[in-house]
């Protein structure tokens, strides 16, 4: 089976599973009363989520496939090895949302059927949601590091200081939000505070540091790499990669403090979800377009 087929089949299987699960599994208890809607209304709302999800996931799979194609073309070269790592990292980020959405959908149903198993299932969900993007960010970071070495550039002292300040502020706010939300430790994490801080919060903050560092290194590479035409061709790809990393971080940030959203109206929640989805879709399209420019250099 070709890589294209493998990526597209995975996408279709995940999308179909998600659609079936969303439309057939009974809603979480209290959902209909909470939002004052009927079951039919809820299913119609589900459709308005499934369709954009399917589109954004497709953009992700497509962007990943295009990047894969390009990295295959140049994999034996120095820049190719770094691009390959970035490609696998982006692949993990592209499939992170579909995989966790499908698994969470079915495991949430399992929680409804087996309330006694909720604790281990929720712990599993939390670690799965962490591990996939963490691996993705590590690979992207290794790749962007390789690219800056190739361009013989290093992040400046000022740049590193700004990054550390941003990550420290974001991290401290995150620790505050995670540890102060009422009942959060029991209802969401099912872990003791110290265990939670070391095994979930710290890896998330580490991951965001890698993300910010990667965006910075991509920016340096895009600005400093030799080759007028090559550099221009990198513009869209750099914008797409940077945007995916930032939006992925935002999604992680928002989903891990999701309990705060309980106070928002349904339209408010949908607005945030759609907004992030649109930016994410555009980012993957930028990757696909950017890759087209770079691929052309390798094909003429």
């Amino acid at each position, binding site marked *: 089976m070709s890589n294209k087929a493998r990526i597209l089949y995975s996408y279709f299987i995940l999308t179909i599973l998600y659609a079936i699960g969303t439309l057939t599994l009974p809603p979480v208890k209290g959902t209909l009363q909470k939002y004052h809607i009927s079951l039919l209304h809820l299913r119609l709302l589900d459709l308005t989520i499934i369709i954009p999800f399917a589109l954004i996931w497709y953009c992700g799979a497509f962007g990943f496939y295009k990047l894969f194609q390009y990295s295959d073309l140049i994999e034996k070269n120095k820049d190719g090895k770094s691009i390959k790592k970035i490609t696998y990292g982006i692949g993990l980020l592209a499939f992170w949302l579909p995989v966790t959405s499908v698994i969470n959908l079915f495991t949430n149903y399992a929680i409804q059927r087996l309330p006694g198993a909720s604790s281990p299932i929720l712990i599993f969900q939390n670690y799965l949601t962490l591990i996939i993007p963490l691996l993705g960010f590590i690979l992207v970071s290794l790749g962007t590091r390789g690219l800056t070495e190739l361009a013989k550039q290093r992040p400046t002292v000022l740049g590193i200081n700004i990054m550390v300040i941003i990550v420290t502020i974001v991290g401290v706010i995150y620790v505050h939000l995670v540890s102060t939300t009422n009942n959060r430790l029991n209802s969401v994490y099912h872990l003791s505070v110290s265990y939670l801080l070391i095994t979930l919060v710290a890896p998330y903050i580490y991951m965001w540091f890698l993300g910010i560092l990667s965006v910075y290194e991509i920016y340096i590479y895009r600005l400093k*790499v030799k*080759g007028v*035409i*090559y550099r221009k061709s990198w513009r869209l790809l750099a914008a797409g990669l940077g945007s995916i990393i930032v939006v992925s971080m935002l999604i992680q940030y928002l989903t891990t403090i999701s309990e705060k959203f309980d106070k928002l109206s349904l339209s408010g929640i949908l607005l945030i979800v759609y907004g992030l989805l649109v930016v994410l879709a555009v980012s993957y399209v930028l990757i696909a377009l950017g890759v087209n420019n770079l691929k052309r*250099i390798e094909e003429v």
Partner: protein
Amino acid sequence: MIKQKITLFSEVVDITYDYLGPAADRFVTRQIRNHLGKSPESLRKKDLKALLSWIKIAMSLLTDDSKLVDKYIADLNELTQ
């Protein structure tokens, strides 16, 4: 003798690097193999004219900036002197 041939190829790649960065080596290798039908190591001065024509065509497909292409070709032309 072999050193001389490799040097000519390297010189073409060096100039190309300013335009195509890390893709330069691959680009020049491909032009030589596909259009001249020889290995990069066997590139000689007498091949340069034909190579430059192919490179000009290829570059026109990559950018609309004709001034940039002309400058690149002019840089490469110096190798023919």
